[in-house]
């Protein structure tokens, strides 16, 4: 590759620049901040602005004091609230992922097997809500679920119930909200995977006497494994740390770790505790993210 005189003088190639700009940006604004969160999680809470005590203090000229404070972590492990919130978040994320797959898989399958023209319309209909504000779409469920909301009004009008059901601020409402918000995230990777499927394989299996359901379980399902895993990760990982949906639909008692982090930070101004919560969350989620990345790498390698 030829280099211009200027580039040679600085000693950097155009190619280097293409890589360096996004690389340095992400290093500074995505990677480095985690080191700061880690450092903060070992600081002590203080009544000050900003509300923590520095970890490293220089005394006089040559004496350096580093106080590693493990209290935040000790606090998280002894107070039952945090452990429960962690387990509950994992449970909620897991159940939501299963429901997203149960609803999303047949939809993605149906779209992939539709005629080319219908397929495009069906895809646009999946993408449309994805582009609309998540906050507003969660808000829509408040209108449906509340005591004088749409669902209760319709059921009372039909005579199915006489007194309004309590749906808003229940775990049920929270699950519906999460599944609803993340459904497009499962359908799209599943569709991308199923679209490449060689349907002749399934026909062959059926011609050889496999029943449709057995052919699906033995051929289609294993072949769409990567799509299932990618879709699940796209739901599970962000759902563990979800804040908006539990707050708006789950009510004040919904025990989710994302809400706890938010409250520690904004309500209690306990930055070090919030940081410790974030670090524990990362310990759980980073292995999953790496797994997701390896699945993605396999998918793109398989495509080309």
């Amino acid at each position, binding site marked *: 590759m*030829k280099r211009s005189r200027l580039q040679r003088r600085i000693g950097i190639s*155009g*190619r280097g620049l*293409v*890589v360096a700009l*996004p690389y340095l*940006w*992400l*290093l*500074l604004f*995505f*990677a480095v901040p*985690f080191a700061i*969160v880690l450092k903060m999680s070992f600081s002590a809470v203080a009544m000050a602005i900003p509300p923590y005590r520095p970890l490293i203090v220089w005394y006089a000229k040559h004496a350096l004091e580093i106080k590693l404070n493990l209290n935040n972590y000790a606090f998280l492990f002894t107070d039952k609230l945090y452990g429960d919130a962690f387990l509950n978040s994992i449970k909620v994320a897991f159940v939501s992922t299963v429901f997203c797959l149960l*609803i999303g898989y*047949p939809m993605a399958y*149906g779209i992939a097997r539709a005629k080319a023209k219908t397929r495009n319309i069906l895809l*646009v*209909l999946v*993408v*449309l*809500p994805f*582009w*609309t*504000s998540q*906050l*507003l*779409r969660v*808000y*829509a*469920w408040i*209108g*449906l679920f509340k005591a*004088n*909301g*749409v669902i209760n*009004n319709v059921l009372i009008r039909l005579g199915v119930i006489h007194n309004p059901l309590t749906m808003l601020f229940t775990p049920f409402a929270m699950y519906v909200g999460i599944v*609803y918000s993340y*459904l497009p995230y499962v359908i799209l990777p599943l569709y991308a995977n199923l679209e490449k499927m060689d349907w002749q394989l399934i026909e062959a299996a059926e011609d050889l006497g496999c029943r*449709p359901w057995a052919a699906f379980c033995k051929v289609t399902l294993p072949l769409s494994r990567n799509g299932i895993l990618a879709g699940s*990760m*796209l739901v599970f*990982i*962000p759902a563990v*740390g*979800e*804040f908006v949906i539990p707050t708006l639909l789950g009510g004040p008692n919904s025990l989710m770790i*994302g809400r706890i*982090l*938010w409250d520690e930070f904004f309500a209690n101004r306990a930055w070090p505790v*919030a*940081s410790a919560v*974030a670090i524990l*969350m990362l310990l759980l*989620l980073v292995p999953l*993210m790496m797994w*997701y*990345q390896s699945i993605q790498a396999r998918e*793109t390698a398989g*495509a080309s």
Partner: protein
Amino acid sequence: MSRRSIFLISCLAFGYAFLYIPILSMVVFSFNASRLVTVWDAAHSPTMKWFYALFHDDEILGAAWISLKVALTNACGSVILGTLAGYALARFPKFKGRFTLSAMTTAPLVMPEVITGLSLLLLFVALEQTIGWPARRGVGTMIISHMTFSMAYVTVVVRSRLATFDMSIEEAAMDLGARPFKVFFLITLPIILPAILAGWLLAFTLSWDDLVTSSFTSGPGSSTLPMVVFSKVRLGVSPEINVLATLTIAAVTLLVVGVSLWVARAERLAKTAA
């Protein structure tokens, strides 16, 4: 009709009903005269009075203006960074830091927003203490935060678009003596233009809708539209928010339908040309 297609069609019908009933109910009740929102006031509805109210709500208009500034700057910035990263990952098979760059552009897609928001805020506080910048948090810090996760989405879109085109045209141009810079602008850029446009729109929407990261990194007097909406919605339903939803849905529908028609046409043209 086979049993399988009946099953699939009912699954699709259920799925789309689930996706669209909440959206449609918001739209319908934005024309309801009653302040209770979900109790239809047949005598005075449909009405446009809440549309009128929304356009005279200074708090919402001010927040929308801040959101617009952040979203526009963010979209342009993250398209540049994301295109560079996507190009590097798709076209340079080996370079130092390739794995890290790939990981750093995948992780923000799934990272819970509370973590991204907290970590960026702590970075800004640490920077302020050590080098005095940023002196105050607000629009600028929000743009930086939004660009960090938006560029990851742009990278994915651009990278996958480049992966579907082989390098032969670019290589041919370079063999004929064109400089890499020229090849990029004359050949690569037109090819990935639909992806860049999609990335720009995606980045704009992500920023326009963002609540969590903005709440952590904004400062006094710079509340974005989602922040104002969230504080209103926490107190219950409000007819103005329904109107806002109706307007958002109308804009998104026009854009998505328009862009997909445009892309379909471009692809048809590309196919007939090939």
